[in-house]
Each structure stands twice: as C-alpha cells, then as structure tokens.
C-alpha cells in the first residue's frame, strides 16, 4: 500500500485554472472569492474563473496535496460570514516552480524562432 511521493514533474502540465490559483496563493492564503479577484486583477480581466471551475480545481488540488485548507474565518473587508482559506503546500510550491520553468522553456523556444517579436512571415501561423 506504500505510495511513493510523486515528483513535482509528475503533475505537469497544469491546467490554466490550477496555475492561476497557485499564482494567486503565492502571496499568502486566500478564500475562494479573493482568489477569483486576484486572478481577474492580475490578468487584466482576461482570465475570469467561475465558482464551478474554481472549486472543482480546489477539490483536486487538495486531493493532490498542492494546496491545503488553513482556517475558516470571516474576511474583515467583506462581511462577517465565515470563509474557508486556502494556502499552497510545499509540494504545491515545487510543482508551481516546475510548471513555470516548463513554460519558460516554451517561451524561450518561441523567442528563438522569433514568433513573438519576429518576422511577419510567421505572423498568423
């Protein structure tokens, strides 16, 4: 029954929702709505996540040990309803770093082929 600890690479690639949630949690623990706000803010409104996608991702991230519940308490800025807060685990941080590195390599490859700043020839491809 012994299960070996999975290496961070085993979780890759992450879905965009999971990566955005992780990035939102880098600065500290947040509740669900605060994660949504952060994602919208940081992507200039380009990425909008609904509660279904958010909590579906949260459920699986908890199951994989990428994030954990920290405590249930009210958000002083909103109202006195209690909210569950989530935070990144050590494994989650390692997985996020591995994913960012993977993406960097892809961006690097793309740059070397000059599709980002380069010639018009590749433009619409």
């Amino acid at each position, binding site marked *: *029954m*012994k299960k070996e600890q999975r290496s961070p690479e085993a979780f890759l690639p992450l879905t965009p929702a999971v990566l955005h949630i992780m990035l939102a949690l880098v600065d500290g623990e947040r509740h669900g*709505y605060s994660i*949504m706000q952060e994602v919208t803010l940081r992507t200039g409104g380009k990425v909008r996540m*609904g509660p*279904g996608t958010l909590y*579906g991702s949260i459920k699986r991230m*908890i199951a994989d040990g990428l994030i954990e*519940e920290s405590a249930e308490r009210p958000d002083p800025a909103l109202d006195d309803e209690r909210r569950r807060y989530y935070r990144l685990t050590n494994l989650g941080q390692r997985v996020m770093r591995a994913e960012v590195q993977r993406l960097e390599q892809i961006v690097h490859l793309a740059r070397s082929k000059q599709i980002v700043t380069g010639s018009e020839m590749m433009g619409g491809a």
Partner: protein
Amino acid sequence: MDTLPTKRDHNFSSSLYRLLLFCYPAEFRRIYAREMATTFRDCYREAMQQHGKTGIARLWALMLYDLVTSLFVEHFRAFIARWKHLFAIEERQANTLMNTMSIIFAQRTDIGLQRSLNEDSALSFLPEDPQILSKKGALFVVADGLGGHSQGEVASQLAVSIVQSAYYQNERDELGLALRQAVEQANAHIYQENQSQSPQPSPDKRMGTTCVAAVLQDDTLYVANVGDSRAYIVRAGQVKQVSLDHSVIAEQIRAGLLKPEQVADHPQRKMITRCLGEEGNVEVDIFTEKVQVGDLLLLCTDGLTQYLDDEELRKIVQTYDPQESVQHLIERANERGGEDNITAVVVRVA
C-alpha cells in the same frame, strides 16, 4: 437606482444560483455548495457596484458558462470515482443498518516507512444477516500489536478476530456490556497463549496488543478501549476523542503533571499502561455516544496520531469520502516520517 428592486434582484439571483448548484454531484455539493453560494454573492455585489445591470448580465453569462463546463467535468469525475468504488473491496455501503441512517466506511493499514513488520490489525464488519445487523450493529476494531519475534502481529490479529466472534455470539441485549466482554475474552485468550509458551518468554517478548473497538447500532455508538489506539467522532466541524489513552503520557497529562505541548519528543511517548495479553484480567473502558447523520467515526493507531493533530484529522475526514480519507491519512503520516505502522478506519454516517 431604487434600492428595493436591486435587493430583490439580488435575492432572486442568489436563489437561482443556489438552485442551479443542485446540478452538481452530491459529494461535491456537500463540500463546496455553501462556499460557492457565498462566492456568487460576492461576485454579484462587485458586478452590481461596478457596472450595474450590465455587470449582472455579464456575470450571469460567466456563471452559466462556468456551470455548464464544470458540471460536465465534475459529473465525469464522479462517474469515474463510482466505478473505482465498485471495485474497491474495502469500502461497502450499508443501507439496511438502520431505518433512517446508512454508513459508508473504509479501512486501511500500512507498514509505515521504518518498521519491517506491520503489527497493526483492523476489522470492519457488517453482518450479512439483516436481523443480526439490526440487533447487534456494525463492528469496527483497530489493534496495535507489540512483542518480539513478530508476536505483535499475532496478538493484534487474535484481538480483532476474537472480539468479532465473541461480540456476535454474545446474547446480551446490552451492547456496551457485550462489547466489553468480547474484549475481555480476547485478553484472556492472548494471555493464555502467552502462558502456554514454553519456555516462558521474557516479559518484554510476551505478546500484547492495544484494542479499540466500536459498535454502531441504530443511533448509538459503543466504544471499548484498552491502550493508546483511539476513537474519534467528528461532528459539524468539531472533533472529539471518545476513548481515553492508557499511556504513561496521557495519564501524566490527566494528572496535571505534563502539558500536552511537551508530548512530541517525550521519551516515553510510546509507552502504554494497559494492554491485552499481559494480565489474566484487564480493565476495559466503555464509552457510549449518540450519533447523527453527518457524523464521522475514526479509529486509528498511534502511528497516525503521533503525526497528525485533531484539527488535521478533522480536515481530512471531512474533506474526503472514507475511501480517500484513509488513504490521505496514511500518506500524511508517511510524509512526516512513518515511524510506526499506521492504521485507520473511517465511517461516515449518512
């Protein structure tokens, strides 16, 4: 803008969203529906403040899109999980246990990372015969064996099997007493085994075992305990240890000689003051609790509780179904060192 219609729109939107949440699988809803409704309300407030009616229209477009896509994902995953459950022999569901309640349970035992033997034993037993089931209930036992030369393994296996047979053969109507006698019989048997060894093993080689046994019948839980394996009930976010540890440390804490925070590295952390097999007679503690729908019962050995505190135990058993819970509990203990064998039984009253 008139405030009254706004509030009415708000209530209507919130109610509609809460209604739509019923489309999600029950397990998902149980964990997240409340939070999703709160989040929806927050989004609604923000959209209204920033963009008024247009904001609300855009919000609903996003919500419906999100609903459709995530519904598909959640149902698909729930479907896969159900198939997995069908093939998982450890978990069974009993709808006939009680008139109003059913139970879902799972058990798992693991050698840990540092021992060469698994001396823990566990049993989850649901009588096939509906009459016996309704009269005597379901039985769950966890035992942590001790003794040299793999004797601990023998002792814990003897304990769970004797408690099971003795309990269901006992004709008494008082189930708590029947359970106590079953544990006493297991003690007598293991003690006899020790006595019949020849040559007589030295005291530290004699076999013994802890034993925590729980009977769930109708809405009553009976727990019998000897040693430092534990029974917990989790109800509405609160965790309660039902059994009392018979360990040097727990007794010093109860006597006010030691503070709970001094336990972690205490040299006598693993020393118990009562076990099955050591004496011809053993004092068995019996605890009785009323249970209700939604309650969770956890039985476990100290290989788990030496690493996870009450709050962590609660979070895991509340977040996952029993099958996933036992897996997560054991993984967590192994991540922190897995010094001892680890065993957990989780029962959800549904």
